[in-house]
């Protein structure tokens, strides 16, 4: 730790070559992801990659400073972990606090309003990631000119697609505003229920727009699917590895983004555990601390830290569920699973396709909910007997999210533990970085375009680094090249 007045001006290390011929390359900051990350690559004297790591460089300390706050404040406080998916944290905290105050079942209006908020957020977050952040790589190529490889470049070359992306995100944000009160950091969910219903006027605005949204969502899914299928030969091995997967499922095994039990499967699709209740999460999962990252490394306890790591997010959710309970997304899931003969799909770049299946699923769910008269109900709150402890799991856009709180008799929080989605993908992202670095950088002259390949693999996971560093830090993307003795050889910051 340090204080402000002791900070010396930074000496930028870009390409550092050690006398023994080894090098260190740095990509910092990682861009077109949410938050701050840094990649350090070590090359040996032959120019072969000996190590490549993604470092999370931010830390904020939420788990400690939430202590002492009143429990009812937590859903609005902890969502400030993340401005892209604040609804996930808002709802996970509200669900955990439902349990704290002894509410096991919400009123139909409250549960459906929260679900509508959640599908609105999944819709906007997936549209944002696909169109604003990832599409430049897919449309222009991984090593395209930096000047065009961004959403403004997409707007110039493919104006219709860019406008659709903007309007889809806007629709999702408007759904959030109507359910949570604000587009970013709303207040809708409160322990035990919700603070408003959906007016008929609000509903009718969405009903007018929803058919157009459905058409665009189908189009986005087709873009992602066609791209993946057409480039399968190149994409299949790109940053790919076999792994376990985890995600929430409903009692009948269908995908459920808001509630349910956790299912984990191994690389062949065998079930490791199923329908795990949120209250049991700490018996099944643990997080390893490693000295070089502020982000921890979660693993399944029964398998251990070495091999118990798992992936989460759209790819994993499509892999673990038996079916999707909306017709068009279910059809899309079958097509997706056929690519790997109904075995788990481990292709890192297939995340984009799976994400667009969920985008369509969210649109279908929004249609379903808009036609449900319960949303105009006036019974918003449920009551129960205070318990003092609560755990919740929700499927955030980026994967399974765990919140756990203890609250004392003064209503003050005494303990908080959060396992955010991106944290579960820490080991997987590091594997992807390492695999791409070894394939594309070993023995090569390192260019900006080659370094972007590493970021493409990271972006597939749609990491949310602010979330991931709720504990205390911040993550810029830098690639450092270090020799086998740990000396910094090269520091490549893009741009």
């Amino acid at each position, binding site marked *: 730790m340090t204080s402000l007045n002791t900070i010396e001006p930074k000496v930028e290390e870009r390409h550092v070559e050690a006398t023994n011929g080894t090098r260190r390359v740095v990509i910092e900051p990682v*861009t077109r992801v949410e938050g701050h990350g840094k990649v350090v690559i070590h090359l040996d004297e032959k120019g072969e990659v000996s190590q490549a790591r993604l470092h999370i460089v931010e830390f904020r300390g939420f788990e400690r400073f939430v202590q002492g706050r009143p429990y009812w404040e937590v859903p609005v406080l902890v969502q400030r972990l993340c*401005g892209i998916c604040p609804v996930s944290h808002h709802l996970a905290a509200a669900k955990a606090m439902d349990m704290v105050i002894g509410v096991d079942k919400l009123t139909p209006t409250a549960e459906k309003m929260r679900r509508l908020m959640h599908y609105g957020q999944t819709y906007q977050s997936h549209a944002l990631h696909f169109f604003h952040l990832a599409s430049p790589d897919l449309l222009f190529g991984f090593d395209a000119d930096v000047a065009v490889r961004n959403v403004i470049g997409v707007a110039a070359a493919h104006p219709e697609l860019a406008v659709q992306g903007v309007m889809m995100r806007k629709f999702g944000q408007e759904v959030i505003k109507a359910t949570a009160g604000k*587009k970013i950091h709303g207040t809708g969910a409160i322990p035990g229920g919700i603070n408003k219903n959906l007016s008929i006027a609000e509903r009718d605005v969405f009903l007018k727009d929803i058919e157009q949204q459905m058409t665009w969502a189908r189009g986005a899914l087709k873009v992602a699917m066609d791209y993946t299928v057409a480039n399968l030969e190149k994409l299949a091995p790109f940053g790919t590895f076999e792994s376990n997967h985890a995600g929430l499922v409903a009692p009948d095994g269908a995908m459920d983004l808001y509630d349910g039990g956790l299912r984990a499967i191994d690389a062949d699709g065998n079930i490791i555990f199923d329908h795990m209740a949120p209250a049991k999460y700490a018996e099944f999962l643990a997080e*390893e601390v490693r000295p070089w990252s502020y982000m921890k490394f979660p693993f399944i306890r029964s398998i251990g830290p070495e091999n118990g790591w798992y992936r989460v997010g759209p790819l994993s959710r499509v892999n673990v569920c038996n079916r999707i309970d909306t017709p068009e997304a279910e059809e899309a899931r079958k097509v997706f699973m056929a690519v790997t003969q109904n075995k788990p799909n481990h292709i890192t770049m297939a995340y984009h396709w799976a994400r667009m299946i969920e985008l369509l699923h969210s649109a279908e769910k929004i249609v379903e909910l808009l036609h449900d008269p319960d949303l105009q109900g006036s019974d918003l709150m449920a009551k129960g007997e205070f318990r003092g402890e609560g755990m919740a799991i929700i499927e955030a856009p980026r994967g399974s999210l765990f919140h756990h709180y203890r609250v004392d008799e003064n209503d003050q929080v005494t303990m908080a533990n959060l396992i955010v989605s991106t944290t579960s993908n820490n080991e997987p992202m590091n594997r992807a970085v390492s695999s791409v670095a070894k394939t594309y950088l070993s023995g090569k002259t390192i260019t900006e375009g080659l370094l972007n390949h590493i970021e493409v693999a990271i972006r597939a996971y749609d990491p949310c680094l*602010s979330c991931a560093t709720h504990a205390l830090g911040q993550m810029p993307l830098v690639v450092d090249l270090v020799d086998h003795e740990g000396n910094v050889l090269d520091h490549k910051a893009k*741009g």
Partner: protein
Amino acid sequence: MSEKPKVATTSLCGCFGCHMSVLDIDERILQLVELIEFSRSPINDIKRFPGRCAIGLIEGGCCNEENVHVLRDFREHCDILISVGECARTGGIPALRNGIPLQECLDEAYLKGPTVYNPSGKVPDSDEIPLLLNRVHPAHEVVKIDYHLGGCPPSADTIWAALVALLTNKPVELPYDLIKYD
């Protein structure tokens, strides 16, 4: 093209919500790129300042030494710096840790939690991750800031109105609706 004023953005110790609020100008983003050109920003892959910028948007305060370096770099390269949102203006929610010794925050996250597995008993510490500051600082404690936009986050309309006024050389006069928060 090149005579368009350049705008750079960064997120320091923030949550990206203020950047999302910038994107909430929705279709006006197409009008915005008629007025300006984006310089370094997390929404593109320009990672270092290619030249001078008219405006820098700062989200977040400073919680580590890296934040301080980036903020000083922004001051050096931008004619006007705007603190966007409560974290840049006051330190915001992350500054809740200022009343607590940093070591306690680290211990809670890396030694104590019910899912922590840490056989070495040490908190992360490596040359590759930046030193944390003892306390979280608002941006204007580190460099001179020219304008402040309040809110968590400031609304898209607020950001839009301020940018358009500055880019068209008009005084930044925001109506009450745009500067009242939650």
